[in-house]
């Protein structure tokens, strides 16, 4: 209780980070090595109170998502893995389910796409803004993309530039109390 009070006093809210992945070999899929780099970057975050939910959404081949599940176990108790099969609603459908599985103590919910590496100070820089009760959502400026494949990179970049909906921001955090459902 005291630790939690100190975290809140310092502006360190508990945050649940949801990583969406769609493994496979299609141009818009994320190869396991890209997801692995993303998860290792999240494991290296310099922040005291966070969990990572890795959500594999409808990846057809088990051999594609099993290594990621194994990696989540290796990375420790902060990491949880979910494989959702036959799930409707594309990314937002899976995100809506992931929201039900976030830690009850998480005041913030963050979304990180599986092909974005965050810096170790990502949360330390982002979360304190939520000490202002008027702040409910904060997107993060993108400075680099993991995926080196020019075709895949173009797909990812276009998706984010054309996005009008903040939920689609590749790296963002949202106050969980103000969060409804992803459209």
């Amino acid at each position, binding site marked *: 209780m005291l630790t939690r009070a100190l975290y809140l006093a310092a502006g360190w809210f508990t945050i649940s980070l949801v990583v969406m992945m769609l493994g496979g070999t299609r141009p818009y899929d994320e190869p396991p090595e890209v997801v692995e780099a993303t998860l290792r970057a999240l494991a290296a975050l310099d922040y005291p109170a966070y969990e990572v939910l890795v959500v594999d959404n409808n990846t057809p081949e088990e051999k594609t998502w099993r290594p990621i599940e194994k990696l989540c176990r290796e990375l420790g*108790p902060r990491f*949880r*893995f979910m*494989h959702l099969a*036959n799930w409707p609603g594309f990314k937002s459908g899976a995100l809506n*389910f992931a929201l039900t599985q976030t830690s*009850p103590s998480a005041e913030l919910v963050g979304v990180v796409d599986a092909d974005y590496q965050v810096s170790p100070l990502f949360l330390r820089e982002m979360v304190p803004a939520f000490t202002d009760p008027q702040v409910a959502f904060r997107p993060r400026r993108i400075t680099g993309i993991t995926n080196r494949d020019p075709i895949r990179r173009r797909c990812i970049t276009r998706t984010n530039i054309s996005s009008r909906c903040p939920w689609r921001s590749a790296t963002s955090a949202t106050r969980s109390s103000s969060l409804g459902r992803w459209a």
Partner: protein
Amino acid sequence: MAHALPQNINDLLEPDRTLILRYEGEDDQSYSVSGTDGARLTVPKNRNVPKPFLDQPPQPLTPAFRLLAAPFVGLAPAGLGALVLAPLAALWALAMLITRSLTRDDRIRVMVVWGIAAGLLGLAIPMSALFLARLSP
């Protein structure tokens, strides 16, 4: 090999860190999913957070302890604040002792409130006297 043992223990201790689910259906309130063993599960959509502990009933002496905090602050302006507020805290504790049937623990707390209030008053009286003496011509 050295890495394998803790990993296996980790797997045993926290089997639920991996969820493998298949969508079966949903309504406004919940998802219907099936696990790897084919068992059907219902997962509520509402992320209402259950309270880990029930609300504590209000304690009779909580206001007295809050009042005791005020005399501490009241010591700063030459003890004059404590001179007024410490007896208030003691009186509140007395009122609780008279009007309520307190538990043994609460009766001990009454004694604690009186003791701290007396101590604060003991500090406040000389401080106030010195302050007033300093003010008088």
